[in-house]
């Protein structure tokens, strides 16, 4: 089968049909789309397909190799899970936006050149913001606007970098780019915004918790992982990434521990997981790259699962504040169970997916002798268990009973969560299936005695710490508060700065208008004199003064020539 038809278009064009289909048929169609796309993906051989000539450049619409195939597969799994999860929603805007979003992320993964990548890159931004706006509140409107501006900005960096890269190398091919010149730096910033590098990360914590319950599940799967894919493709082995990633893995922990909005906690923990992947890409050895992409694969599933369970809670109770929830395990036993599976996976319990993938990155860091980074990552692992592994299920489903009694999540949500949970355990128990898909051949063994014992110790001491802190009351209580993050810089400080100026200007102007009404008139008269038909620039000059100008020009020219 020829692979010239971009697989992305199956989802994107298929999405166009969705609004016109009646109830059941629509659901079947939406479920079928990712499956059709996956079947197509399996049927086409690896290699370059769909090459078109445009403006003297060869654009490659479909580049199928091990790396893109792996990400394509996980994106299709995520798309299928998200569609199942959102099946009960009766809002075709969300369905179309979700499918187009998934499709464009898929297109970006298979893009073989920077121009195609840029187009899909921008399409992911535009389609995903609809999922934020679909919550339809003034708050989500403002958040969505900030989100889409940042995303489009990332595209601008990518485009600028791609053009410079093209000028420097004469090729638009999307291969290894590296940080050797300004083109590489611009592209890295573009990718960095998508992967939520420190200081470029605020859009993530800002937007994800504001989307619809189902929208966040879509969002969590694609944008940041697309950034990771692009980094793995273009910047593998770039040393700076090790440090960026280490920082990324560590600092969100603190925010996550004190955050009250549980979906925002997950957003922070996502940033922390992305840090692990960025470290892996930065190390750049075969094992590290394998670990990074495998962890991305696992993370999409377990992070999706956690977002799904929190989405179900939000749907049923109408709130997602840790301080208002608690004791939900009685009402939502299935959701509780699935959430715990997700929490165990993200905390890297043995026999769950996080364990078999994260340990690859840790081993790679240890093998390269990056002791400091390894220690920070170890700390971050303990932190993950703290805020995502214990805090999320504890505050939502156990803890003090909030008295909320609600129905169990809808069937379709439970199905999606069930599949995701099964995948988490499946990968944890049979890691070889995932390992076979990785870009480099590996005989890595996650289940060695030292791995298991070390990780178990870490987890148990972490759990012990949590228990002790809760008992003694030292653990930061769930306050009804909003965290101050670096986005304060542009949301409050910069705004205040501008507002101060604006007010100062306004008062100055008011003062001036009062005082200088007469002067203002004079200025108006002056402007009129120049700009009205009889004004100096407007009126027809007498022939004499025109001739004078000609003489002036001639003399000026002569003077310049003789003196210059």
């Amino acid at each position: 089968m020829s692979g010239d038809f971009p697989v992305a278009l199956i989802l994107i064009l298929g999405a166009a049909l969705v609004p016109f289909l009646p109830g059941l048929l629509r659901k079947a169609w939406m479920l079928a789309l990712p499956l059709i796309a996956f079947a197509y993906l399996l049927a086409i051989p690896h290699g370059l397909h769909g090459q078109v000539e445009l403006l003297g450049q060869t654009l490659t619409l479909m580049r199928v190799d091990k790396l893109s195939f792996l990400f394509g597969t996980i994106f299709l799994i995520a798309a299928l899970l998200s569609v199942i999860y959102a099946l009960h929603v009766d809002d075709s805007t969300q369905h179309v936006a979700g499918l187009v979003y998934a499709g464009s992320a898929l297109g970006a993964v298979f893009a073989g050149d920077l121009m195609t990548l840029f187009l899909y890159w921008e399409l992911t931004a535009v389609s995903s913001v609809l999922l934020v706006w679909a919550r339809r509140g003034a708050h989500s409107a403002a958040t969505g606007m900030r989100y889409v501006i940042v995303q489009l900005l990332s595209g601008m960096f990518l485009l600028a970098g791609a053009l410079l890269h093209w000028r420097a190398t004469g090729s638009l091919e999307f291969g290894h780019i590296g940080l050797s010149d300004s083109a590489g730096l611009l592209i890295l910033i573009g990718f960095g915004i998508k992967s939520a590098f420190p200081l470029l990360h605020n859009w993530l914590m800002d937007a994800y918790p504001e989307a619809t319950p189902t929208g966040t599940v879509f969002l969590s799967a694609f944008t940041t992982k697309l950034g990771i894919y692009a980094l793995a493709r273009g910047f593998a082995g770039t040393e700076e990434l090790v440090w960026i990633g280490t920082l990324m893995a560590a600092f969100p922990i603190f925010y996550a521990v004190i955050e009250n909005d549980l979906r925002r906690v997950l957003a922070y923990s996502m940033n922390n997981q992305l840090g692990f992947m960025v470290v892996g890409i930065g190390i750049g050895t075969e094992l590290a790259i394998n670990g990074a992409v495998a962890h991305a694969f696992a993370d999409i599933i377990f992070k999706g699962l956690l977002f799904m369970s929190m989405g179900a809670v939000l749907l049923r109770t109408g709130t997602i504040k840790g301080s208002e929830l608690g004791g939900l395990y009685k009402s939502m036993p299935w959701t509780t169970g699935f959430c715990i599976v997700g929490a165990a996976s993200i905390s890297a319990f043995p026999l769950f997916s996080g364990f078999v993938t994260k340990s690859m990155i840790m081993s790679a860091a240890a093998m390269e002798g990056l002791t400091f980074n390894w220690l920070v990552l170890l700390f971050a692992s303990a932190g993950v268990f703290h805020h995502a592994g214990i805090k999320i299920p504890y505050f939502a489903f156990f803890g003090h009973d909030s008295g909320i009694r609600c129905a169990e999540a809808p069937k379709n949500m439970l199905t999606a969560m069930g599949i995701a949970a099964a995948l988490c355990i499946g990968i944890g128990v049979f890691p070889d299936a995932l390992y076979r898909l990785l870009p480099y051949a590996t005989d890595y063994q996650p289940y060695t005695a030292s791995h298991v014992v070390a990780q178990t110790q870490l987890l148990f001491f972490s759990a012990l710490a949590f228990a002790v802190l809760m008992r003694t009351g030292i653990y930061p209580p769930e306050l009804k508060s909003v965290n101050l993050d670096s986005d304060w810089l542009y949301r409050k400080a910069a705004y205040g700065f501008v507002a101060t100026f604006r007010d100062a200007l306004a008062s100055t102007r008011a003062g001036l208008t009062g005082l200088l009404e007469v002067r203002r008139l004079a200025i108006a008269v002056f402007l009129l004199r120049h700009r009205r038909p009889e004004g100096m620039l407007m009126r027809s000059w007498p022939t004499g003064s025109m001739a004078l100008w000609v003489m002036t020009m001639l003399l000026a020219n002569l003077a310049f020539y003789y003196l210059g």
Partner: protein
Amino acid sequence: MGLTAHLPALQVVLPLLAAPLAVLLRHGGFAFGLVTACAWAAFAAAIGLWLQVGALEGGTISYHIGNWAPPWGIEYRVDRLTSFVLLLVSGTAAIVLPWSRASIEREIPADLHYLYFAMFGLCLAGLLGITITGDAFNIFVFLEISSLSTYVLIALGRDRRALAASYRYLIMGTIGATFFVIGIGFLYLMTGTLNLADMAERLRGVENSPPVLAALAFITVGVSLKLALFPLHQWLPNAYTYAPSAVTAFLAATATKVSVYVLIRFWFSVFGESLIFEKLPLPQILLLLSLAAMFAASFTAIFQDNLKRLFAYSSVGQIGYITLGMSFDSVNGLDAAILHLFNHGITKAAIFLLIGGMVIGLARPGAVLPAPTFDRLAGLSQRMPLTCFGIVIAGLSLIGVPGTAGFISKWHLILAAMEKGQFWIVGAILLSSLLAIAYVWRFVEVVYFKPAPEGATKQEAPLSMLIPAWLLVIGTIWFGLDTSFTVGTATEAAMQLVKIGK
């Protein structure tokens, strides 16, 4: 020798002969047929020459008038740039002439029609002659032919102010031509030849002598006046505003452009790049004047009430882009200048033709044509949708919106500025484009968003006017999308010129 070998001569001779014939026969309809046929023939000749030069791969056609070998005889030289400008001039004439039949019915008394066509033929012959000839004094002669006929054409306008505008242009044009011929005199003094190629060779070694510098100053200022370089543009707005519409369209697309061509020719082919750009501060002067034109003229355009006057000022601003490209002294800069010369030519011709049709539609039958002032244009889009839409598209090209011809030339201009590392100029180009948005938006606002006066009925301009005008509008889009002809020719021309000068 077949007919094709004589194309350079036919190019000029055909319209030149048509003029006296039209005067002798004193019949409007016949004059129309004759001059139009000659313009088309000239257009065909220009296409032929373009193909011939293309086949030479960077070479030059040299045609000896009367078989007298240069430098004693008069030589016609056609290179890439020449053929490009010839195409623009003769092509515009071939489109404007059929259009003008319906227009002058209303604008010019019937007994003067034959004169209009005769003068048009002369003007065309003059402009083509300036472009094609390789002889300095010959340029002056053709300059005078085209100028004198232009004064008559402008004075034919119905508005009484047309006479005053024409008179002022006559004075200024004569000063310009005098300066030019003084410059030629100095050059003849120093070299003893009038053939441009020969002159260029003999100037080597005496470039820095005072007479040559004086010649350069006189020629530069004289030609700058003809091409309406800011602040020597003052004759232009009135001339464009009060001339008959067809004349405005033809002049806007060709006259100033041919003057630009003369300046390029003298700077790059005669005086040489090393003198102009390395020894003298000319690029700095030209850069400043270009920026002044881009801002001051565009800004003035925003405040105009008469649509023709508005676009006349816009022309002055757009010429600033062309001269800006020249001031960079690089293949890319010259490339952008030549591109903009062509792209702006067809864009402006389209706009003025459409305005001409609009004026006809605005007038009551038999009455004097009104001026296209904004108060008469309210809600006009309902009465003349095609005309208004055409002006909007051409206006987008003036702004430089992607997909139009204006974008291509501005893009090349920006590339040339970036190549020089002058990023502030890029900012200036973009800022001045904002001014273009402002004056085009004024038109859009009045025509599309103001309510039409009561009882207005749909009344488009006649088809014989709409079709040629829309051909040009489609041209602005076509050359915005398929740039192989324009960019290809302009780049070849620029490379040829810069190679000569070095």
